[in-house]
């Protein structure tokens, strides 16, 4: 298989990959995938990206004054509820 022909096959395969994946099919069982280093490298890249992303996001602290805003909003809501209770 020539390099050019190979890329044509890759394009066809990669074009239908979203549908294949959506259908629940095992991409690894596809004949093209078994024989194609380019497409195997692509999926390996995607898995590596997913793994790297999981390591990327630390748990971060919200700003100190956020609680004050929440507390104030809670107090406003409770006052509102109190006014409605008194009115009825």
């Amino acid at each position, binding site marked *: 298989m020539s390099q050019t022909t190979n890329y044509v096959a890759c394009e066809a395969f990669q074009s239908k990959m979203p549908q294949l994946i959506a259908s*629940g099919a095992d991409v690894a069982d596809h004949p093209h995938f078994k024989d194609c280093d380019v497409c195997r490298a692509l999926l390996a890249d995607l898995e590596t*990206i997913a793994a*790297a992303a*999981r390591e990327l996001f630390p748990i971060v602290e*919200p700003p100190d004054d956020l609680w004050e805003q*929440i507390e104030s909003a809670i107090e406003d809501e409770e006052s509102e509820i109190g006014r409605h209770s008194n009115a009825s």
Partner: protein
Amino acid sequence: MPYSDSSTQSASHASATPVRDSASATALASSKNHYSTNGSASEQAEILARAQAGDNQAFAQLYSMHKRRIYSLCLRMVGSVAEAEDLTQEAFLQFHRKIDTFRGESALSTWLHRLAINVVLMHLRKKGLQLTSLDEAMEPAPDQRPGRSFGAPDLILSGAIDRLALQRAIDDLPAGYRLIFVLHDIEGYEHNEIATLLDCSIGNSKSQLHKARLKLREALRNYPLPEARR
């Protein structure tokens, strides 16, 4: 190779349906401690019980226990500090309104996590992201879709991912792609859970995740190598 699900983290996201039940304290007591400010399980259960009885000081303690996880979640999902702050505030306000309906079918942290995700989803819908039909609404415009670059040099990602580049690439993802990517690859939701949350098919969730990863790969390939940026 079971591609689309192989990277799924083990995460249990039980239903967050808020219904009243006195077992909530037990559930909180049995939840895992992910927070440095948490006390013992019995202390947490006591704090929850006090907060459910209307003690705002106890609610402040619950905020301290969960604020980092919820804020971080919001930040990842929307990519904007200002929006993440607003959404965290809204999530805790809703938590306060619904706290006495927490019945303990799941850990409090899981329940609150689900509540926060729903707050973010509502926010995104208001901003115009239609989630009811992912095929149409979550599919980015043609110029935002991942391209195919056959014949380009292989991207050797293993051990060579630039963290800054990946962070930027995730931040730059179209909202629909980022939503699926964050929920699945970072938060560890399963496709069936995402499908329920977003009211789409499981296949659609899988397909969108694949496209999101392709988009990230494309962005990383276009990002200058560290030596080239010097």
